[in-house]
C-alpha cells in the first residue's frame, strides 16, 4: 500500500497568547506537529509494514524532519504555504502536495480539533471519500480497515482505496526519537517544492475582523488558604444549585 502522512501543517494553538484586550498574539509563528500527528503517523506505519511505502507531506515553515526521525523514509515539503483560517484552503495545499507524489492509496492526517475541516476538504479536493475520527488503521486484503468509536460502540470499517483517513490521538506521543534517529533524519530525502511549482493558488477568501475575549464570565477563582477557599467554593456551588 502506498500511503502519505500529512504532518506539521498548522500552528500549535499553545503558541497563541490571548491578550487582555482579546487580541491574539502568536508567540511562535511556526508550523508545529499537531497533537494528533503522531497518531496519523502510527497509522501510516501500520498500513505499510508489510510492503508499501509511506511518504511524509508537510507544509509551511515547520521542521520537515519530524516524520523522518519517526520511521518515514522520504518527505515532500511545500515550503511557502502559510496558515489559513479557511480549512478548505489548507486542504487545497495538502491535496496539491499529495498529487505531486503520484499514485497514492491512502492519505493519513491528524484529526485536529482546531482544524476539523481539513481532512474532509482534503478528501473532497482529491475526489476521494473521507473517514474521520479514527483511532487505528490496518491493511487487509488491499483495503484499509479502520476502527473508531461512535457513541457507545466501537465501529470497524473497511475502506476501498483511495481514501483519506483522519486519525485522532488516544494518548500523547510516548516514544520520542533519540539523537541517533534525529541525525539520521537529517540525511533522509526531502523534496522541497512551492505553491507555484504545484500550481496551487489559495487566495484567502475570508476577511479577518479581529478577535475578542469570549463573553462568558471568567473563571471565579477563590484565593486564600484551602479551608476558606473551599468554604467559598461550596457556598457558590450551593448557590448554583449543583450541590
Amino acid at each position, binding site marked *: 500500500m502506498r500511503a502519505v502522512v500529512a504532518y506539521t501543517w498548522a500552528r500549535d494553538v499553545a503558541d*497563541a497568547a490571548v491578550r487582555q484586550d482579546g*487580541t491574539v498574539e502568536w508567540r511562535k509563528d511556526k508550523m508545529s506537529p499537531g*497533537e494528533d500527528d503522531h497518531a496519523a503517523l502510527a497509522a501510516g506505519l501500520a498500513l505499510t509494514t508489510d510492503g508499501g511505502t509511506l511518504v511524509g507531506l508537510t507544509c509551511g515553515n515547520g521542521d520537515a524532519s519530524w516524520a523522518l526521525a519517526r520511521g518515514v523514509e522520504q518527505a515532500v515539503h511545500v515550503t511557502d504555504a502559510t496558515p489559513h*483560517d*479557511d*480549512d*478548505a484552503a489548507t*486542504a487545497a495545499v495538502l491535496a496539491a502536495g499529495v498529487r505531486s507524489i503520484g499514485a497514492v492509496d491512502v492519505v493519513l492526517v491528524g484529526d485536529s*480539533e*482546531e*482544524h*476539523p*475541516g481539513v481532512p*474532509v*476538504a482534503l*478528501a*473532497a*479536493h482529491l475526489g476521494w*471519500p*473521507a*473517514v*474521520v*475520527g479514527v*483511532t487505528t488503521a490496518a491493511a487487509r486484503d488491499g483495503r484499509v*480497515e479502520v476502527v*473508531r*468509536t461512535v457513541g*457507545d*460502540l*466501537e*465501529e470497524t*470499517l473497511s*475502506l*476501498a482505496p483511495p481514501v483519506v483517513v483522519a486519525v*485522532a490521538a*488516544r*494518548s*500523547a506521543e510516548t516514544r520520542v526519537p533519540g539523537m541517533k534517529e534525529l541525525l539520521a533524519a537529517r540525511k533522509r530525502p526531502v523534496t522541497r517544492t512551492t505553491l507555484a511549482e504545484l500550481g496551487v493558488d489559495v487566495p484567502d*477568501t*475570508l*476577511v*479577518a*475582523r479581529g*478577535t475578542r*475575549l*469570549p*463573553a462568558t*464570565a471568567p*473563571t*471565579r*477563582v477563590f*484565593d486564600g488558604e*484551602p479551608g476558606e*477557599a*473551599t468554604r467559598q*467554593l*461550596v457556598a*457558590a*456551588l450551593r448557590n448554583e444549585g449543583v*450541590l
Partner: protein
Amino acid sequence: MSATATGAWVIATEEKRLAAMVRAARALGGTVTVVAVGPRALADAASAAGPDGVLWLEPAGAEPVEAHAAHVAAAAADAAPRTLLATVEPGARALLGAAAVRLGAAVVPGVLSLRTEGEGVVVECSAAGGAAIATLACPGPLAALFAGDDDVTAAAAPSAPVRVLDDGTAPADLRVVGRAASGRSAGVRDAERVVSVGRGLKAKADLALVESLASTLGAEVACSMPVAEDLGWVAKERYVGRSGQHISPRLYVALGISGTPQHMEGVREAKVVVAVNNDPAAAIFRTADYGIVGDLYDVVPALVAALSS
C-alpha cells in the same frame, strides 16, 4: 458558484444541534433545507425543526454515511446554497467537506454564530483553542462547522415536506464490518456529578483522596487521558476527552488537570466546571466556572471537610 446563490443547507446525521442550526440558518434569510442522512426518524426530527424542506437519504445497512458524500455534494452543486452548516461529528463533517469543496466554499470550524451582511455572511468562531472569539467576513460561499449551543427549547414548527434524495449516484465503497460495545462506563457517562483527576496526582495510591471527594459528592470518578492511557491508574472507559467519554454532568470537578483542548472537548456540555490546579496559568482556568489555585493534596481534604460541614 454564482454570487446569486441563496439559502442555507443544514447537513445532519444526528439530532444533536439540529434545531440550533436550523435557527441559525433561518436568521440568515432565504430558504433553509435540512439534508438528513440517516434513518427516517432523523428526517422526521429535521422536518419538525422548522426548515422549509428536508432532503432525506437513508444509507443501506452496512454503509456509513460517509459513503454518500459525493451524492450530497452533487445535490449541493445543483441547489447551490450560499451557506452550509453541519456539526463536527464524523459523518456530518465528511458530507459537509465534500459539498463545500464542490461549491468552492470556505470551511470555517468552531462557528458560534452567523449573520447576513450585504451579499456576504459574517461569522463568529472559536479561536486560540477557545480562549478568544474571532470575527470573519465571508464574501463568498461558506461551510460552517457549527459549535453553537444546542437549542433545546425550539418551538414545534409546522412539519416541512420530506423529499427523498436519490439521483442514482453510487455510494463510495466503504463498509461497516463490525460494531462492538466500546466498554465505556455508563456510570461516568450518565453521572450528575463527576470528580476527575489528571497528572497532578503523584501516585496511584493517592486515588483514595479523589475517591473520598467523589464519595462525599456522590460522584463518579473520571480522569484525563494520560492517567488512563499512559499511567493506567484509572480504567480507560473512565477517561474524559475528545477520543474518550463526552459527558454532561451538572458538576465536573477537575483535580490537577491542565485543561488541554483535547480534554475540555469531553466536558463541553457540563453545567458547572470546577478546577483545582497548582498552576495559576493552567489553561483550565480560562474555561472553568470556578477555580482554586492550590495543591490538590491540600485542597481536596479541605473541600471534603467544607462539603461535610
